[in-house]
């Protein structure tokens, strides 16, 4: 199967609605490889890049650990800190899988985040572009694609 390159822009409107409804402070929607699809709240490209890389690593670790311990991948993660909470969700959108990292404080809650995640999943499924619309992604182009997506999200800063 040909994996197509990750396009940005199509998920911005559903993400904005999710962030507003669920009172999220930071959110990044990404491909499991760590390629960013949409983001909210981050001011620097490097922060998004780091958040995506770490989230992809957490997801891969949970997959591997779950398969080893429970014969099935662990899905999703929630961490409750003293001030902020972090939620990492897997979302089946169209024929693919995306990861969503959400950071929130006491203005929201895990229940609220899960509630609006379901709505976001539906909205993304309705707006996801067809895979044929995107050029094939090649491993050697990973960094170039990553940089072009970040440039698209942050302008030319």
């Amino acid at each position, binding site marked *: 199967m040909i994996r197509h390159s990750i396009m940005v822009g199509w998920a911005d409107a559903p993400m904005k609605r999710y962030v507003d409804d669920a009172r999220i402070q930071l959110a990044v929607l990404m491909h499991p490889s760590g390629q960013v699809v949409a983001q909210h709240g981050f001011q620097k490209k490097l922060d998004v890049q780091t958040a995506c890389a770490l989230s992809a690593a957490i997801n891969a670790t949970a997959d591997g650990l779950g398969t080893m311990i429970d014969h099935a991948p662990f899905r999703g993660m929630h961490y409750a800190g003293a001030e902020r909470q972090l939620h990492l969700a897997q979302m089946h959108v169209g024929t693919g899988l995306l990861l969503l990292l959400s950071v929130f404080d*006491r203005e*929201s*809650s*895990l*229940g*609220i985040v*899960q*509630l609006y995640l379901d709505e976001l999943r539906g909205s993304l499924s309705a707006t996801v572009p067809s895979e044929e619309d995107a050029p094939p992604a090649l491993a050697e182009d990973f960094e170039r694609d990553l940089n072009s997506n970040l440039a698209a999200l942050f302008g030319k800063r």
Partner: protein
Amino acid sequence: MSQFTPVITAVTKHRGVQAALVVAEEDGIVVDGTAHVGVGTNAFAALTASLYRKASRGAGAAGFGTVSYFELEAERGRVMAAGRNGLVIIAVAEPRVNVGLLRVELVRAAESL
């Protein structure tokens, strides 16, 4: 059967109650409860716990102390909640419910949380 079954049963037995849920105040996640078919328990739990938290913060900011009970009246039903020790017991009811009796039941139930 959980430790919350008796309080949930006591609330549910009132005529017109459609759902009775014990919910974590901070997370808005259902701990235990029962509901009629068609009641979106997760949505009710998350949104009502959020309202309860905000009411508590509002009461705290106004210097009124802790919130023990609140009620939301809508065109076709009522949502009533009472909380203690990080838990909230929520009742979703039809307009015909006996509000006074259910309120007493919820406050009593909250004391056992």
